[in-house]
């Protein structure tokens, strides 16, 4: 925490609190800014308002009881959170996931990435004053949520990806509905292009804001679309392939500029790429089991695993330690992408003007449930 009265300020300098409850902070995050007129000299993010001690809760719950809690990390991309946890258990217990299970997982993960990026586009517009597009983003996201509801029964938190595969098989008519939705979505995305790229105010507020070089971004621990916007073609789906990503043909979207507009462009590009991945997976979706047989009460052998996935916001990893005797994890550490991306935020937002802090903050697309855990 920060005690405002103890911060040293020079002449003409002012301390400004942004948040914790601010429409542009995507949850409860407080930014303590030291400003000199319009210029922001120093940023100190204050987090922890949503800290639920999920890592401690894991030690007091069985492996399966903890699965629903992983949903609550990044609550707008809950499928993506189930994945590394399920992978960690499978790796410890040496469970082989059936092929159909892996295909369904990839379809769900990419649908989730779509939904998450659409939400980003909506909120990003809203943060920059383009309120119309907020409704656009939500409108298309709703179509994806319908699909996810169809398979899992939930619209926000799913607990669908399960150790050993997925919880249920795809319901009847899902494949057709999914194909139909994916075919119709791109024509709506054209609206976004018109809306954003013909809007000079939007472009002026994004271009050249928060420029970051790839070396710096790597040293700062930035992952995901922000890193790819700096020109580094690093995507864990390619670099450290998991599930069936190595059998699919897709591009890693990169941009050279490293500014906020590039971050937006990368996410726009990834939306199309996700549709491509889902279509490929639907085409070659095999028949068979959707889940391997796993015992009701999991008791993995002793060991330590570190599983990594490319969540919509960057690298989401889980370090899971089992002692081999207890039914609970011995220690579980979550490496969340938002936490690390937020930690780097002051480096590229400091020294800029105050209005750009909001643009920068919107561009990193964090979710506070993921930051605070």
């Amino acid at each position, binding site marked *: *925490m920060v005690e405002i009265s103890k911060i040293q300020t020079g002449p003409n300098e002012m301390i400004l609190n942004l948040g914790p409850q601010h429409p542009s902070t995507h949850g409860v995050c407080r930014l303590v800014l030291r400003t000199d007129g319009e210029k922001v000299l120093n940023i100190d993010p204050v987090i922890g308002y949503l800290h639920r001690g999920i890592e401690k809760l894991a030690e007091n719950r069985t492996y399966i009881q903890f699965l629903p809690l992983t949903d609550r990390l990044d609550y707008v991309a809950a499928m993506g959170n189930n994945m590394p946890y399920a992978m960690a258990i499978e790796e410890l217990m040496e469970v082989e996931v059936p092929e159909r299970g892996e295909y369904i997982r990839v379809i769900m993960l990419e649908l989730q990435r779509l939904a998450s990026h659409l939400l980003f586009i909506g909120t990003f517009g809203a943060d920059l004053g383009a309120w119309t597009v907020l409704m656009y983003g939500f409108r298309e996201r709703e179509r994806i949520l319908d699909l996810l509801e169809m398979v899992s029964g939930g619209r926000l938190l799913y607990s669908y990806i399960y150790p050993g595969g997925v919880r249920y098989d795809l319901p009847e008519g899902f494949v057709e509905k999914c194909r139909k939705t994916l075919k119709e979505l791109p024509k709506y995305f054209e609206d976004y292009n018109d809306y954003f790229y013909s809007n000079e105010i939007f472009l002026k507020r994004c271009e050249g804001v928060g420029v970051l070089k790839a070396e710096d971004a790597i040293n700062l621990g930035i992952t995901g679309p922000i890193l790819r916007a700096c020109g580094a073609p*690093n995507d864990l789906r390619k670099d450290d392939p998991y599930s069936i990503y190595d059998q699919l043909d897709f591009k890693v979207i990169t941009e050279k500029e490293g500014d906020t507009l590039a971050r937006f462009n990368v996410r726009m590009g990834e939306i199309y790429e996700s549709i491509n991945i889902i279509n490929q997976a639907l085409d070659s979706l095999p028949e068979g089991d959707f889940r391997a047989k796993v015992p009701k009460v999991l008791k993995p052998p002793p060991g330590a*695993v570190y599983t990594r996935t490319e969540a919509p916001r960057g690298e989401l*990893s889980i370090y899971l330690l089992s002692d081999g005797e207890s039914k609970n994890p011995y220690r579980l550490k979550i490496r969340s992408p938002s936490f690390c991306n937020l930690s780097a935020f002051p480096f590229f937002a400091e020294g800029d003007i105050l209005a750009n802090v909001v643009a920068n903050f919107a561009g990193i697309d964090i979710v506070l449930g993921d930051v605070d855990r």
Partner: protein
Amino acid sequence: MAEEEPVEKPEERPVEEPVERPAVEKPEEEPKKERPVIKSKVFDEIKETLKDKIVDSWIMSERRPFIIIKGEDILEVAKTLVGMEFDHLSAISGVEYGDRMECAYHIWSYSKRELVTVKAVISKDNPEIDSLTPVWKSADWHERETYDLMGIVFEGHPDLRRILLSDDFKGHPLRKDFELTEKPW
């Protein structure tokens, strides 16, 4: 002895569990014998360069080598690894065992595509270790978090204060002896 079925009423569990488990030790030593031997050039290279520093090492699965070192060597090991293009510090996790503490650094190399987990063993009575902020800037918040939740002190960290919990919070909740308060209902 805490639970038989996962459906049991959950009230007593949080109070009992943490007291029992510190007795368990070395959970990570078995698997290296059971698993098939995985060959890794990077792993051999690391073992070659850091010969005298490594206490133990194994490969858990593909692209996941593990090494154990002494806590006081961490800064030197980190600098060596950065020289070997291990450029991305993915996470730092503190783990408490019955007799010792461990600080696990998960370091990824974008060019070599391997993730080495460096486990630095430190004493439980005096959990101190050098800060890696001079090597990776991303270590800053990871170390603050580990200090906050686990109570490991990082020497040389520019601004070591609590990050997720409030300043007046007592204790470090991820320690096994941290007493969870009973539910008020």
